[in-house]
């Protein structure tokens, strides 16, 4: 049998590499901007398109799906071809994948600042873009499996298993978390409501971390680290155990994002138990990576690429130790909703994803350009300023989290809250916010240095767009009568492998999701909780548009420090009409679950127009366009119809009367404002959002009044 000659496609790898760098800089710049906005409200720039609530999702989406996403595809397209000794299945599909993904990113960059969002964290994009993501993901899948099928290496290396698991699980997660009912071209409602919606979202959110930020990077680690260190992975057996245990356990851990909420207790306990177990496979992977460098630590001293890998793996180890700790209920009760979580995710994002990406870029670009890296000194500078950047970012922000949580939970000896005004705790952490943005600037400086260094590297070399290679073709499979190992057989059969990985991730998903989604008694209803009025519903959509939930939660946990501050703890039955749920994940300002009736309409008006006029030192942006923009009531009927389809009990035919009711309620609020010397037309957006804020948590109070009578 003669060896076959073929060509690796390096051009597609280069394209994804450039996209990684460009979107990385964009995503981090937006991150820096929102960091500054948190202590300098003028940085919101006075337009609705650049306020924190709208561009925070832009930052998270850009970093996760644009920077990390393109880096994944770069790594996969490079390693897959070489591990399988073949060119990618189809150049056309490769290009459709590349340009399709970039178009999706551009669509996100346009729609998110416009306020077109589903409000589900890391899944904010509206339904037409969700469909585009699905299609492009399928293109990626066909291209990957096509390549696997025409391979010249019989067995699939562990990196490829991670890629397969990534592909299949992200497909399941994306589809299940995007089941929404379109109201118009750019507006939809989530099919699930309240606690069910929350469970689906955080099953998704947690596993997006697992299967987008972790498994593909572990696959890349298993390929690139042995290449960089020029030695095989420390233990291939450990990598097999690592793979199966990781994908099996990760999928169960989502509910640790919902501890002390109204999620059924058993689901919370399940999430905690599996989160704690998760430390074993995570550290197994980290140790396998670090021990691959055994006997090569002298190389680490000289080789900046390995330095990035070592710090990246260490950050992974830190983040995956911290994760299980944070899932313990006692720790979570303290840390959740604070900046501690922001610090935790940035150890992972900047350290693990960022540094691994930089290492791979520094290693890969000179190779496909057939040259040396332009400047090792600049790369070394990047390593040090990047590491310092991470430290300057995370240490102050950990400190801010601890400080704020301690203050929010502190009582005086007399038993009253020591800091009853939330704002006091915010003002205390402003210096840490300033420090954090310094850390971010250092980190970004490193990335820009890298961009320059790699640009010069590309310029001095020339791209080997089609790199010649040679390998023996696969012989027809001869039935191996004494094939002992079941796993060894599996490694030759990609489709069966994918199905098995799918089964493994579906086990946890079903046990975790199905009872809450299907058993009614898990969500006790409350008779006094009624659907939103049309004006409140419109106001709620404005709340979603402005991204208020980026800073304000809507769920009171059963702690005395919270019930004293906000009021009665939240019940599952309060959220049954909330498509989507709006609990949020972070408190930059106070919780709003019990906001209704606490303050006057006039206060809300001034507070939205200029928060500092009523709360000295507030970091909330001004929302003055809410008084100039007229509420769009053309969709009211469609919204009522959609809600009814989802099970909200609006009477049949109510959609025809809805706008009349809306006008009436709006006029009432405008009249009340007029009596308090605030002149605003009743058809302005601000009236709707005030109506919504005044409704929050009111129903349950009505219940109490009724019971007392």
């Amino acid at each position, binding site marked *: 049998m003669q060896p076959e000659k073929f060509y690796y496609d390096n051009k597609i790898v280069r394209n994804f590499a450039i996209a990684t760098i460009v979107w990385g800089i964009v995503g981090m710049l937006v991150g820096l901007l929102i960091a500054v906005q948190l202590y300098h409200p003028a940085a919101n720039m006075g337009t609705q398109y650049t306020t924190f609530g709208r561009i925070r999702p832009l930052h998270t989406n850009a970093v996760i799906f644009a920077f990390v996403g393109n880096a994944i595809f770069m790594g996969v397209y490079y390693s897959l071809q070489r*591990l399988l000794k073949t060119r990618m299945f189809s150049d056309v599909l490769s290009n459709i994948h590349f340009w399709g993904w970039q178009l999706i990113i551009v669509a996100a960059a346009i729609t998110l600042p416009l306020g077109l969002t589903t409000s589900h964290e890391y899944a904010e994009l509206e339904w037409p873009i969700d469909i585009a993501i699905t299609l492009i993901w399928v293109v990626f899948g066909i291209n990957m499996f096509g390549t696997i099928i025409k391979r010249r290496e019989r067995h699939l290396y562990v990196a490829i298993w991670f890629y397969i698991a990534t592909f299949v699980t992200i497909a399941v997660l994306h589809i299940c978390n995007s089941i929404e009912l379109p109201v118009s071209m750019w507006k939809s409602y989530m099919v699930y409501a309240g606690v069910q919606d929350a469970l689906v979202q955080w099953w998704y959110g947690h596993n997006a971390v697992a299967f987008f930020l972790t498994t593909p990077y572990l696959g890349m680690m298993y390929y690139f680290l042995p290449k960089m260190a020029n030695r095989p992975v420390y233990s291939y057996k450990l990598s*097999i155990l690592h793979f*199966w245990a990781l994908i*099996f356990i990760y999928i169960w851990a989502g509910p640790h994002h919902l501890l002390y909420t109204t999620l059924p*207790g058993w689901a919370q306990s399940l999430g905690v138990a599996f989160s704690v177990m998760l430390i074993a496979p995570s550290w197994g992977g980290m140790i396998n990576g670090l021990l691959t460098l055994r006997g090569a630590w002298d190389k680490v001293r000289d080789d900046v690429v390995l330095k990035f890998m070592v710090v990246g793996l260490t950050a992974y180890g830190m983040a995956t130790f911290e994760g299980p700790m944070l899932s313990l209920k006692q720790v979570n009760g303290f840390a959740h909703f604070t900046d501690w979580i922001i610090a935790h995710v940035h150890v992972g994002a900047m350290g693990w994803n960022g540094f691994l990406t930089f290492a791979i870029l520094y290693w890969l670009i000179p190779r496909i350009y057939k040259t040396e890296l332009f400047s090792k000194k600049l790369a070394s500078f990047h390593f040090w300023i990047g590491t310092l950047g991470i430290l300057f970012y995370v240490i102050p922000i950990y400190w801010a989290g601890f400080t704020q949580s301690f203050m929010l939970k502190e009582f005086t000896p007399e038993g009253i809250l020591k800091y009853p005004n939330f704002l006091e705790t915010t003002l205390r952490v402003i210096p840490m916010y300033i420090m954090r943005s310094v850390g971010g600037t250092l980190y970004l400086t490193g990335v820009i240095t890298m961009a320059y260094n790699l640009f010069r590297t590309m310029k001095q070399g020339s791209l080997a767009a089609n790199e010649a290679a040679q390998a023996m073709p696969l012989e027809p499979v001869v039935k191996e009568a004494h094939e002992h190992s079941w796993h*060894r057989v599996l490694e030759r059969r990609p489709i069966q492998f994918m199905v098995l990985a799918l089964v493994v991730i579906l086990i946890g998903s079903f046990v975790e999701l199905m009872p809450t989604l299907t058993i009614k008694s898990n969500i006790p209803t409350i008779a006094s909780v009624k659907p939103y009025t049309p004006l409140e519903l419109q106001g709620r959509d404005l709340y979603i548009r402005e991204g208020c939930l980026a800073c304000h939660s809507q769920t009171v946990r059963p702690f005395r420090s919270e019930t004293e501050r906000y009021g009665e703890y939240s019940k599952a039955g309060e959220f049954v009409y909330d498509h989507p749920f709006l609990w949020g994940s972070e408190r930059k300002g106070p919780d709003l679950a019990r906001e209704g009736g606490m303050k006057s309409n006039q206060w809300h008006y001034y507070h939205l127009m200029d928060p500092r006029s009523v709360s000295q030192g507030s970091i909330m942006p001004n929302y003055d366009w809410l008084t100039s923009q007229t509420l769009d009531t053309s969709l009211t009927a469609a919204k009522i119809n959609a809600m009814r389809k989802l099970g909200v009990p609006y009477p049949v035919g109510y959609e025809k009367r809805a706008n009349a009711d809306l006008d009436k309620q709006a006029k009432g609020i405008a009249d009340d404002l007029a009596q308090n010397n605030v002149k605003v037309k009743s058809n302005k957006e601000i009236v709707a959002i005030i109506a919504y804020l005044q409704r929050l948590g009111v129903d349950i109070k009505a219940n109490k009044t009724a019971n007392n009578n």
Partner: protein
Amino acid sequence: MFEQFTKGLSGSQVYLISSMIVFVVFFVVVTVVLIRLKKQHINHMGQLPLEDSTLLNPSKSLQS
């Protein structure tokens, strides 16, 4: 105050226990599979990333 959590547990412990059993069984199965893997195969698999260079030794068999 914590009634809502404890109430949710009743009758659902079967989920906690069965999922733990599922995990233990899964873990044992993977371990058994690992123990049964041949060393020669493991070495071959570990070497895969290192032998992707553009020109392979044509005499090398692809059969593991």
